[in-house]
């Protein structure tokens, strides 16, 4: 019998009545009329069908009026990549389905309609760990088109796992005259406590602000009190589950949005550091990427075989996540020297994340520089990887690669690091 069928099950003198649920095991899972699910082993169970599955009686979504097209409000586009900011629970079956349409999003977060006129579109429906460079490229083109078509700002909903990578990639690929805001949620949108709505509302507010960069807007603290605006190239997910997982590394956030649940029209954006203003940039798209780049984390005892392997497999550039100021074992130096001589750029970043790479302090570092390793300054390893893909799509000249890697393009390199 298929899930959704109403059945009566007799087992050990007890009668259970309810609706069959999908089961991950051999056990029968039944949703009882009191709302509880129970699992029953099929042995000695007599199952009797009462009603067949009737899709007609599927819980009808409550159609709620949503505000669309209010005069005087800016036009924002929400592009969805699979990170859900809205979802609906079917209480009859317990299924949770993500919602993407403009209507669905506005029904779940009607406050968005008080901030802007929203139009929503689905680009991907994937978990963010399944993202890849070619998806970033398509996304960049979509954003470019939206801005070209007059969007006052663009919001991208994204799974949080790799949101930092995407933000970084978009930062290099698009020169934007308007805000491009990535947003996600750490606590699933099927729970009343989800951070999705507040993050989305703050993101919408930022998308209307005087900003012209690719940014990530997420909770600033565990409280529902404000969101930070992080520069796309400087942001990193630093916690597996907490709301304030996203942090700016080696720079202060660009700004913050104070949140008031009772009146979202009163949300104010406070800028905390320098940033590009609306209209500072002319819209440009440089969406080419050399996907064949790798990020390698060094650990004590790791051998350089991995480098040979990666090069053999066709990789065109390598970012190392070294120790401390930017080191790998001295044993690696001959290998690195060889692959660099063969035209494979190697960029050094630090697994400390905080602070800048400086290979002039210790012998190993000096040897690495002599071998041709490019210091990745204070770039995040992930940002350096994405940037290397972007740079290698433009040039294979080793000197030019080095020059570009060490030139600040999208805020990824900070000239001065304050004591944070």
């Amino acid at each position, binding site marked *: 019998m298929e899930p959704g069928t109403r059945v009566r099950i007799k087992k050990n003198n*007890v009668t259970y009545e309810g609706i069959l649920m999908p089961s991950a095991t051999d056990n029968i899972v039944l949703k009882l009329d009191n709302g509880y699910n129970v699992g029953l082993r099929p042995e000695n169970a007599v199952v009797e069908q009462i009603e067949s599955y009737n899709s007609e009686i599927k819980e009808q979504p409550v159609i709620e009026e949503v505000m669309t097209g209010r005069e005087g409000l800016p036009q924002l586009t929400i592009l969805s990549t699979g990170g859900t900011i809205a979802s*609906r629970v*079917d209480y009859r079956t317990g299924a949770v389905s993500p919602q993407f349409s403009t209507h669905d999003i506005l029904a779940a977060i009607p406050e968005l309609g008080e901030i802007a006129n929203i139009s929503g579109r689905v680009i991907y429906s994937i978990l963010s760990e399944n993202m890849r460079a070619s998806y970033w490229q398509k996304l960049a083109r979509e954003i470019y088109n939206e801005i070209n078509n007059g969007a006052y700002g663009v919001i991208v909903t994204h799974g949080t796992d790799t949101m930092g990578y995407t933000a970084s990639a978009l930062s290099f690929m698009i020169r934007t005259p308007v805000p491009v805001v990535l947003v996600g949620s750490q*606590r699933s949108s099927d729970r*009343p*406590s989800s951070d999705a709505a507040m993050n989305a509302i703050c993101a919408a507010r930022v998308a209307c602000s005087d900003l012209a960069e690719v940014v990530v807007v997420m909770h600033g*603290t565990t*409280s529902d009190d404000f969101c930070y605006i992080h520069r796309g190239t400087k942001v990193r997910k630093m916690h597996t589950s907490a709301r304030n997982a996203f942090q700016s590394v080696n720079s202060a956030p660009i700004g913050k949005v104070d949140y008031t649940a009772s009146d979202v029209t009163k949300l104010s954006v406070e800028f905390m550091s320098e940033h590009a203003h609306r209209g500072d940039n002319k819209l440009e798209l440089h969406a080419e990427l050399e996907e064949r780049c790798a990020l390698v984390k060094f650990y004590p005892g790791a051998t350089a075989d991995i480098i040979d392997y990666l090069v053999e497999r066709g990789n065109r550039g390598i970012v190392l996540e070294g120790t401390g100021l930017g080191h790998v074992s001295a044993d690696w130096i001959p290998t690195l020297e060889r692959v660099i001589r063969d035209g494979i750029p190697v960029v050094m970043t630090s697994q400390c994340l905080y602070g800048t790479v400086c290979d002039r302090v210790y012998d190993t570092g000096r040897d690495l520089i002599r071998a041709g390793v490019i210091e990745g300054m204070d770039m995040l390893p992930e940002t350096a990887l994405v940037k290397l893909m972007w740079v290698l799509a433009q040039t294979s000249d080793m000197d030019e690669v080095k020059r570009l890697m060490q030139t600040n393009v999208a805020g990824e390199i900070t000239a001065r690091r304050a004591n944070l």
Partner: protein
Amino acid sequence: MAIDYARVGLRAGLEIHQQLDTGTKLFCKCPTVLRDKKDARYSFIRYLRASKSELGEVDAAARAEARYSRTFIYKAYDTTCLVENDEEPPGELNPEAIDIALEIALMLNMNIVDEIHTMRKIVIDGSNTCGFQRTALIATDGWLTTEEGRVRVDSLCLEEDAAQKIEERADGSVVYSLDRLGIPLVEIGTAPDIRTADQARNVAEQLGMILRSTGKVKRGLGTIRQDINISIDGGARVEIKGVQNLRLIGTIVDNEITRQLKLMELMHELNNRGGRVEHRIVDLSDIFRDTASRVIRRAGGLVYGACLRGFAGILGTELQPGRRFGSELADFAARYGTGLMHTDELPAYGITSAEIARMRSVFGASESDCIVIVAADTRSRAENALNEVLNRAEEAMRGIPKETRRALPNGSSAYMRPLPGAARMYPETDVPPVEIDPLRLKDLSSRLPETFEHRIGRYKRQFGLNDELATKIGRSSNYELFEAIVRAYKVAPTLVARTLTDTMVELTREGVELENLTGQQIHDIFRLLAANEFGKEAIPEILRYIANKPDQTVERAIEELGLRTSMADVERFIEDTVASKRDFIFEKGERAVGPLMGIVMREFRGKVDGKKLNSMLKTKVLELLEANKGD
């Protein structure tokens, strides 16, 4: 007034929530300890939101309010973690808690599911940081027996306790403490098989005892909460929440029956009179511009009112001790933070007859009408409050509303909210289902605490109690104390059992607060009795004394009550008595003992065991008769 339960058609069920005494919480490794709120390490704020379809409330105003939700402030401790904060996925269901729940289910003769599925039950009052309570159905279809018959036990759920509300601030925000959130508890619901108030109390007591007999449930204030479902013929199902005191259960049942019967009377009365609720809210502020009423001035000076045609005397009718129909209406006004006043109780609150007369003329109200007014600071607050009141007044002419009520300390109850519909539940996908191994059940079954039936049989065999007394003490919560005392001291088991059952019931009925007594004090009573420090007749007197002065020792009680007697004094008194009644003894012979016993008992009742006195007296009398024979 005695209630004829069968005639009113009482159907009642109980729902009991009992915290389990596990080492860690239900979904994380935090200890299950309650904290001093001053020890909170940090706090954070959250909002909760739910789509309209999840709210279940019909009231549009409440719905709009809920969309934006109130501000919730959570206090966290070094004994709480990211799971309570809703910052980390829950761990797996605590196996220790599952075992305790299974044990309780077995003792209640329940059928246990093969696989436990944790659900999310939507709760957006802030008491759960995630906006839902995690709960799992463990067992169904059990039963327990009472003297009045079998009561079915419908369900046993294992769930997480909620955060504790510690403050509601003036700005509408609510402060919760996270220490209690996540403590495992079992929720046990009976079928509506309870037919009398006494039976309700018995069932609650028995459930409490079964829970305690596991030795794995928490004890003390707030660790067990009882809700009662009550309905009568022609009435409505009403759920009364938060009964803390077991002894109140009977009173609550009686008071709710009375309330529903009274409401039915009022309904008939109103229909006979042709009562009518006028939904016309009038601004009466002008009348009270220069009022002497501090209540009105303090509330903000605005007064709005409406007229209930033909309602005179209705609002003043008492439904329960200390609660009139007017109090029921006032509960609704209170939802908007306003008080309610009505002409059944006026003049009062500084409102004068002249002001009442002016109100009456505004509405063209006669003596048979009742005017209800609220004082507030804003028009909308007053109107919202009055609309609630008018709707409830109108309902009084149609019947008794289904509702959730809050138990009050005197056994009455106040309106809380409408009876919730079916709970909105969906699977907690973060917690994998747990299959129950039949071997685990077998193992638990073999180690269950003793059943009542077994214990009663054992008491008859082991201590020679009769059937009636064995049943009473066997089902009593004092059974452990009984066994300990009988094992420790040379005292008659029947006396101990009688004391711990009948005597205590009688004293409680008298109003003696026996809960003040400690087990140690009761031990001491029997220890000193065994040592002949006083006579068994004095036990009720000692209990009464200690209950009133719980910090006194039993020794002190014996002293204070003048129960301590030296046997030499007793002997002297008996000798003197016998000496002074020589002629009577010579006349009656051995039969003189009976009447003389009266004199001796008057002196030593409770101080010396009657049997002992009797034998001493008899000895002296026989000695005298013997000596006389020799003369």
